[in-house]
């Protein structure tokens, strides 16, 4: 039988606010163990949470960027469970009244656009980290991460393949980076993903029993885990078995998953409204204020690049997939450079350097201003494309202007006909064999002679002028 898979995602993104959600401790990653915490985030008796307003702002931003309705009245709830990384033994989260709901995002897979529903986005606090056998035997808790703000994004079960899930994750990551609310570093755990997977006979509208998969540490792991789970469920069903409701854990090393807990062991979180915090009440003015402060989002930018700049879809897609690349591009274009020329540089030589040095565009030495200078010198005809590459190489290491480098290296293109004419005459005089060839009708002798003049000028002579003068000279012989 042919099957169709049904996939929904639950994505946790750490918000990049400076301080934690309920106290004023820093959210910085990588501090010494238990140095970024206080009586509040370690759940000392008697302490109380105070909601960081920035967290609400960031979550509303994310909600608006994902086309959600923002709740004017939402509340926070306690999710009760025991675990040593959760010092209060409850997580402050949102249960039935989340901050954002009913949104959507469009993804593109195999050339087709598909709309994926965003069920809800809510705010909550992160837990700490357990360190196993870090100091001798036993487990210790690092509470630096306790109270780091998170948003949980829950999607509708609208995806039908691992590829679509991957595309949605990329899309969400790009958007969160565009609106600057999360740095989305999966390796630092600032973006985490759980997936829900079920299968049903192709064409069916009744979803099968779903399972939940945890511990997905990269986008590719997510894709692999989904495919693994689809195959596993198929095998179970084909063998006449039944899919049971369970939570499974992905092991990336063995590329397989195992059952963590079944329905019978499902926890009862005993959610109830957090009595220490007031409901979150937002007015239209606040919500609209945030809406107008949103930057241009990737979909809009993509359309603009194609429409206004006539960029190929390929270029527009690659440029807008990264907030930083597109910002670099926008800056250069706003300074007056030809969009396609800028795109060529970014997607060509610049991307190559970024890859080789594994750095981001923000760490890239050549500023948009310098790139624009370089492009403008090419367009003015001051330097050839070949010379431009040499200037680019120098710019990568030295703090000089494009003009300085051209001067120092003598890279300026010679457009002075009389100077080139002298070289042409000399080359013709010294290459009588080529002249003979030309006379015999071997027109490619011209190419050789042009090359010789270029060599004589150490690459600085304008090739079009050389060409013109050589043809003239040969014809006059």
């Amino acid at each position, binding site marked *: 039988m042919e099957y169709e898979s049904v996939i929904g995602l639950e994505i946790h993104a750490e918000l990049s606010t400076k301080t934690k959600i309920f106290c004023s401790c820093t959210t910085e990653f990588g501090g010494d163990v238990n140095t970024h915490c206080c009586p509040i985030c370690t759940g000392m008796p008697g302490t109380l949470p105070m909601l960081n307003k920035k967290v609400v702002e960031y979550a509303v931003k994310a909600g608006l960027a994902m086309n959600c309705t923002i709740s004017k009245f939402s509340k926070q709830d306690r999710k009760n469970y025991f675990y040593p990384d959760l010092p209060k*033994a409850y997580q402050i989260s949102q249960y039935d009244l989340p901050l954002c709901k009913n949104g959507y995002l469009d993804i593109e897979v195999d050339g087709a656009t598909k709309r994926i529903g965003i069920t809800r986005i809510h705010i909550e606090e992160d837990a700490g980290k357990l360190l196993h056998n870090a100091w001798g035997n036993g487990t210790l808790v690092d509470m630096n991460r306790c109270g780091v703000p998170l948003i949980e994004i829950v999607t509708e079960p609208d995806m039908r393949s691992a590829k679509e899930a991957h595309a949605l994750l990329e899309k969400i990551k790009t958007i969160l980076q565009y609106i600057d609310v999360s740095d989305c570093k999966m390796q630092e755990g600032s973006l985490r993903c759980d997936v829900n997977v079920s299968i049903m006979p192709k064409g069916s509208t009744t979803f099968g029993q779903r399972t939940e998969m945890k511990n997905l540490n990269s986008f590719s792991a997510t894709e692999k885990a989904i495919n693994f789970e689809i195959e596993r469920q198929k095998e179970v069903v084909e063998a006449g078995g039944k899919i049971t409701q369970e939570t499974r854990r992905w092991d990336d090393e063995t590329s397989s998953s195992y059952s963590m807990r079944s329905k019978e062991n499902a926890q009862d979180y005993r959610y109830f409204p957090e009595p220490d915090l007031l409901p979150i009440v937002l007015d239209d003015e606040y919500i609209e204020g945030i809406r107008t402060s949103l930057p241009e989002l990737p979909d809009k930018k993509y359309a603009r690049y194609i429409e206004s700049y006539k960029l190929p879809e390929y270029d527009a897609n690659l440029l807008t997939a990264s907030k930083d690349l597109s910002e670099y591009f926008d800056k250069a274009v706003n300074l007056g450079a030809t969009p396609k020329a800028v795109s060529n540089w970014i997607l060509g030589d610049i991307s190559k350097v970024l890859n080789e040095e594994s750095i981001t565009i923000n760490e890239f030495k050549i500023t948009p201003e310098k790139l624009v200078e370089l492009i403008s010198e090419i367009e003015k005809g001051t330097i050839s494309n070949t010379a431009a590459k040499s200037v680019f190489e120098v710019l990568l290491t030295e703090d000089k202007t494009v003009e300085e480098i051209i001067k120092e290296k003598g890279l300026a293109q010679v457009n002075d006909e009389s100077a080139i004419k002298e070289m042409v005459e000399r080359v013709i005089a010294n290459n009588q064999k080529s002249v003979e060839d030309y006379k015999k009708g071997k027109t490619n002798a011209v190419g050789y002679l042009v090359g010789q003049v270029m060599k004589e000028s150490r690459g600085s002579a304008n090739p079009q002028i050389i060409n013109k003068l050589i043809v003239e000279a040969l014809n006059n012989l």
Partner: protein
Amino acid sequence: MELCELTAHELGKMLRNKEITVPQIVESVYKSIELKDNDIKAYISLQKEEALKEAAEMQKRFDAGEDLPPLAGIPITIKDNICTKGIKTTCASKMLQDFVPPYDATVIEKLKAQGAIIVGKSNLDEFAMGGSTENSAFMKTRNPHNLECVPGGSSGGSAASVAANETILALGSDTGGSIRQPASLCGVVGLKPTYGTVSRFGLVAFASSLDQIGPITKDVEDAAILFNAICGHDEHDATSVSMEHPDYTKALEKGISGLKIGLPKEFFGEGINSEVKEIVLKKVEELKAKGATVEEFSIPSIDYALSIYYILASAEASSNLSRYDGVKYGYRTESADGLNELYEKTRSEGFGPEVKRRIMLGTYVLSSGYYDAYYKKALKARTLIRQEFDKAFTKYDVIIGPTSPTTAFKIGEKSENPLEMYLSDVCTVPVNIAGIPAISVPIGTDSKNLPVGMQIIGKAFDEMTILKVAYNV
């Protein structure tokens, strides 16, 4: 007369007149403690050395002619569920018997800023759960008026210390009557402020939506002075209200003519001791004679108050007390095989029976499948009680009744029967559910010579009126 027998306002005047010194007051208090506390057992811990040092320093400031706040140099006793930096805060529980908070509760910061001197930490029912202070893991506090009787609870240590002149002032906390009921049973004044007027930051949470810190004092004037010192918005407590507070001592004026008093028949019905009823009604007659009008009326939903209370308070408690798991601080079982056993043994050994009972009750009412029937319904009923009080306050300035259905009962008399013990809160609990203020004032003694307290309930944020009425009692 010993200095420890005086009130804060009397001592304040004498200090400013240079008739006495701060060390004299503090020494008098400790002398009284040394004399009586072996019997009364009001204190879990004492701060004598530190207190005497602070007293000397405060005296220097008086000597230098500084204009000091009203509580400067005044000894105060703190219920042992309010966090004091560097001083053990046990909640009268084995679970926290060695817990030393790394921070001060906001009320403690405020008291220190005023120059008040902490005498020690007073006994309570474990985690403030109880009405007799018998649920302390360490000892039973006795009523100074009769050592065979309970002082009430849960702020029994604070109330007994004030009544026995083992301090000048005390702080208690009130979730369902824990300030007013022991004040009533010990014959002192206890004020439960409007929810949100005193910061809860640093009060070890029992039921977050009901808990409120308040004064236990020898007279109404001291209650106003202490309330002045501890009220106000706190940026560490989201439920604390941002508002302008009046000077509450301005309420202390004689004359109540025109005052409209409502007497809910639910406070004078079955289960209320007839002698208590009689004494309260006699006092109401006196208020009438002073120009107040009195009307009987009904708040029907009060009948559900206890049930609502034990659902909401236990639910919140079950969550608030989950953090005591043996991982971070407090008691941890000697040995455990694995995480679940660590939790089970730590909590089984660390909590007393009443605390466990309420945790189980609270866990049950929040469980999936039961939430709607219990917790959600209780929240709705809570709204109903609030509305009925709101309606009553359109007609009356204050609502009056007994604070406790009985006077102090014998130690052990109710400790085997939790339901009977819970009934002891029947008059005080509705006030917490409605979030409104109430004060208990002593109005006489019964035939056994035990104090009777009268509860004066006001509308939200109208502590001025109840203080004024209390002052006129």
